[in-house]
């Protein structure tokens, strides 16, 4: 594997920075076109209700209203997952949660659209609802959709239970019998929001000729195109989707909530339609991550060896079937090399908005429960929590709790770095506890396309198909520069629309630096091959006698030393005469993403009179394989840690008895503010991923996994009592004191 990098590991200024700080960058809501209409969506005030009738006649009669649509305007689709998405965008027959869209209006102004909404008359027949996962799983619960109960499930669970998974090996009971101490606990975690700054927004134009243009804020415009084309019954080629700059996604923008509605309105009105969600709509109707109810049982020998482990995870994922608990069950015990382990999971529907990904979806809550029990065992047996984790840590060759055998991984390195860090031995102030937790994420490869052009002036343009949500344009340019042997600022990378570069999977799974990186390196190889060919042509030697070294073609073999190297710029300058433009492209589906482990240390101070928590010090260690742009990697680690801290302390969707969301805004949905936090110290660990030419693993998600348990373990050690539910808001801590 390549080691001596020239560009990788440096920290160039971000290419999208100037536009973003000067307000020039175009986000979802920033685009307007002539003749554009404004859309608004009418939403259900009920948690669950039959839509008896919708009378839109008064709204349609209002001057300035150009189109009104309801669920009846959407034809059925074959793919059941697409149908769920469509019915989530616009209810058909039943409103399934507070905030579920039931009608939409396009009008000449926002004001007229708002007035028209008030004129739509919906007759609802309220139905029984359920928003809690354990209640939804109970056999007598109101069932959201018939006929979707998971296979192999018995009468002890309701029809809301849409899936069951089990992973592991050995026999946990045998393991518990070998233990000196066995602890079993039940945990609950709240549904949490990704907290992106930018609400979903789009501008849709679907003409009478059947051709469509869609501008939207998304993590994956090819996925948007697929879903919308299916729902609108269009050919994919006829719908061009352009991804705007994105004001945060964190998984929340990997599907659609408004785009099919805007397209349908545009089709009906014959004019472009802009649809921008309000913050309240974002909370009520887009996807948060799952809430969870979990049982974890772990046995430990006196010396700290984990002898057996078992988890039961029940996830609540909102109003439609979904598959996500699987990732929780796979992640739960991934940090440990165990003989006897099993993790089971159930996916459950409730009358809440359909869940969507949030950074390492499914893992943080499962790992929280596991790492809490491990910590309690350490306390009970008087063992050092890092030593215990090092003793039991998964390493190269370990059979993972979810099946595969690990290749080179950096968990032990991260744990040892944590142990050696001054943070771990620093004295603790009064009322302060130090929490430790491991975390894990798979990372992903997926389909990818990259197109690279070598310009006549020796610069390079690169088009990728993945929206840049974490600085990937810089990292991709850096990898292109590294591969070609030129300077970073000679390369400009853009995110192309769906008509300008081949298919690319969604920006998720921490995959972009890994997968687009591989495609970029391969595209560069193709361009290099062509440049070597041109040099050979000019030199009149055979292609095999030319090698690419440090950004230039070199004659090798028996021609070595007879010809001066020919640089990329020199070859590019004459390309018009040597055969035309030089380019490289690559399409593929790299599948050797490397798993990534993290270890977090936190000092939490608890005010014994109020239950107020303050994060006093935080250090996050993470194996990222190779940090292409270390500043971005540090930002990912810090951002993940902060989101996890919010999850641990104050964030939660609060539903009332009536099934309505009580806190649809950032005042009462409390993400941490800057003054709540110390500087999060990131420590990058690089154990190269053998599946990537530069060792990249992907680093975006792992960091949200450890903070939940790290903070909870810190609180437990600060107050001498343990909480088994998140968030640990001050009233709950004060009660536990």
């Amino acid at each position, binding site marked *: 594997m390549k080691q001596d990098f020239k560009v990788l590991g440096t920290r160039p200024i971000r290419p999208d920075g100037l536009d973003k700080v000067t307000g020039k960058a175009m986000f979802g809501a920033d685009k307007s076109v002539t003749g554009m209409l404004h859309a608004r969506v009418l939403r259900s005030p009920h948690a669950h209700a039959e839509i008896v009738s919708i009378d839109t006649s008064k709204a349609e009669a209002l001057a300035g209203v150009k189109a009104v649509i309801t669920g009846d305007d959407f034809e059925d689709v074959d793919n059941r997952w697409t149908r769920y998405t469509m019915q989530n965008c616009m209810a058909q027959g039943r409103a399934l949660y507070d905030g579920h869209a039931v009608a939409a209006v396009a009008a000449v102004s926002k004001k007229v659209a708002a007035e028209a909404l008030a004129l739509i008359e919906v007759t609802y027949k309220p139905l029984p609802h359920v928003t809690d996962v354990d209640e939804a799983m109970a056999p007598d619960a109101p069932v959201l959709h018939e006929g979707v109960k998971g296979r192999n499930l018995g009468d002890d669970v309701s029809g809301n239970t849409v899936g069951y998974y089990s992973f592991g090996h050995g026999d946990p009971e045998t393991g518990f019998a070998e233990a000196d101490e066995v602890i079993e606990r039940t945990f609950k975690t709240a549904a949490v929001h990704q907290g992106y700054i930018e609400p979903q927004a789009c501008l849709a134009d679907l003409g009478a000729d059947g051709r469509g243009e869609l501008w939207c804020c998304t993590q994956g415009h090819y996925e948007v195109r697929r879903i919308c084309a299916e729902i609108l019954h269009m050919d994919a080629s006829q719908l061009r989707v352009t991804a705007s700059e994105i004001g945060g996604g964190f998984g929340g923008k990997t599907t659609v909530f408004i785009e099919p509605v805007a397209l349908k309105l545009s089709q009906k009105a014959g004019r472009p339609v802009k649809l921008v969600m309000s913050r309240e709509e974002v909370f009520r109707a887009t996807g948060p991550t799952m809430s969870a109810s979990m049982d974890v049982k772990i046995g430990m020998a006196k010396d700290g060896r984990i002898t057996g482990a078992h988890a039961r995870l029940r996830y609540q994922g909102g109003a439609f079937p979904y598959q996500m608990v699987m990732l929780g069950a796979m992640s739960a015990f991934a940090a440990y090399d165990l003989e006897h382990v099993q993790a089971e999971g159930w996916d459950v529907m409730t009358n809440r908005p359909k869940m969507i990904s949030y950074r390492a979806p499914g893992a943080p809550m499962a790992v929280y429960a596991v790492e809490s029990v491990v910590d309690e065992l350490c306390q009970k047996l008087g063992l050092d929590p890092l030593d215990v984790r090092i003793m039991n840590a998964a390493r190269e060759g370990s059979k993972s709790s979810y099946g595969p055998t690990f290749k080179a991984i950096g968990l032990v390195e991260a744990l040892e770095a944590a142990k050696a860090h001054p943070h771990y031995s620093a004295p603790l102030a009064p009322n302060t506890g130090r929490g430790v937790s491991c975390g894990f994420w798979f990372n992903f490869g997926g389909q990818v396309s990259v197109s690279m052009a070598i310009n006549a002036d020796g610069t390079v343009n690169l088009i990728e198909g993945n929206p840049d949500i974490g600085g990937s344009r810089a990292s991709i340019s850096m990898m292109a520069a590294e591969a070609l042997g030129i300077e970073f600022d000679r390369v400009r990378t853009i995110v192309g629309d769906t008509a300008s570069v081949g298919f690319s999977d969604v920006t998720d799974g921490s995959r972009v630096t890994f997968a687009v990186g591989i495609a970029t390196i391969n595209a560069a190889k193709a361009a290099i091959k062509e440049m070597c060919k041109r040099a050979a042509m000019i030199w009149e030697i055979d292609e095999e006698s030319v090698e690419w070294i440090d950004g230039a073609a070199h004659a090798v073999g028996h021609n070595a030393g007879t010809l001066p190297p020919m640089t990329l710029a020199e070859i590019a300058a004459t390309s018009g005469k040597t055969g035309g433009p030089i380019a490289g492209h690559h399409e593929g589906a790299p599948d050797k993403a490397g798993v990534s482990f993290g270890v977090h240390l936190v000092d939490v101070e608890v005010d014994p009179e*109020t*239950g*107020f928590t303050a994060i006093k010090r935080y250090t996050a260690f993470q194996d990222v394989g190779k940090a292409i742009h270390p500043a971005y990697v540090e930002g990912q680690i810090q951002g993940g840690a902060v989101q996890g801290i919010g999850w641990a302390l104050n964030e939660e969707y609060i539903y009332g008895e009536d099934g309505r969301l009580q806190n649809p805004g950032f005042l*009462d949905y*409390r993400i941490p503010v800057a003054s709540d936090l110390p500087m999060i110290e990131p420590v990058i660990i690089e154990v190269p991923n053998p599946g990537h030419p530069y060792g990249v693993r992907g680093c975006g998600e792992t960091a949200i996994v450890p903070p939940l348990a790290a903070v909870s373990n810190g609180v437990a050690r600060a107050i001498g009592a343990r909480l088994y539910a998140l968030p640990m808001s001050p009233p709950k801590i004060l009660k536990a004191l």
Partner: protein
Amino acid sequence: MRYVVAKDCPEAVALLNANNGARLLAGGTDLLVQLKQGAAKPNILIDIKKIDGFGNIAAEEGGFRIGATVSGAEIGAHIALKAAWPGVVEAVELIGSTQVQGRATMVGNLCNGSPAADSVPAMLAAGAVARVEGPGGARDVPVADLLKGPGRTALGSAELVSSVLLPKRGARAGDAYLRFIPRTEMDIAVASAGVNLELDAGGVVVAARVALGAVAPTAILVPEAAAALVGSRLEASALDACATACEAASNPIDDKRGTAEFRTRIAGVMATRAAKTAYTRAGGSL
């Protein structure tokens, strides 16, 4: 909706008098949010920011008169005011963020009528007096008498507050304000307390006022809590009695921001902590 800039106080009062459904606009940091949410639908907005004298902070008989449109940032930057009434100033400065501070007024905070408004318990503790202008002329009303319930004040429909007076007080006096929020800023008080103390030469509390926020339909004065402090040097027993009186006076709601039980307990904690700060500011040593 019409928007009118009132050039003087009589014009503002006349506009209020002539229009049912008029609203005064000071910093707008409450009102604009309400407009956006559709919670307020005034037919006319009367901007009072251009009224002469409304933007002044003036010394008056040993106290300070703060005009209706003085912003939080201006209050925070006023050195003499801050020295005289540090508790009121710290309460005002807690409102919102730097951006909000540039607009938000103390009088707007009062007139908005929120039980959780930060400056109000501090004003109650200070014994602040509002100058109310109406069709019949001006009258002075203790801030305590203006509070009526969530979103409601005792102002008549054609009345406005032109200024608030923080009165003169003795040399060995100090005040403090504390609120509890789950985070460190940008939040609404779950419970809060303003305390104003006067000491004798020996450090004994001779006069006290204790006010609580967010634990009743309006901010409230708690005379029993104040009485518990008078005659003490804030010994533990006095502080305990003060906290107990605060808990007894609290009658909070149970909601997403905090349980009634939690708010009640926190009210006592905030009051005793604020009392200690006020005591040191008054020159006492704990």
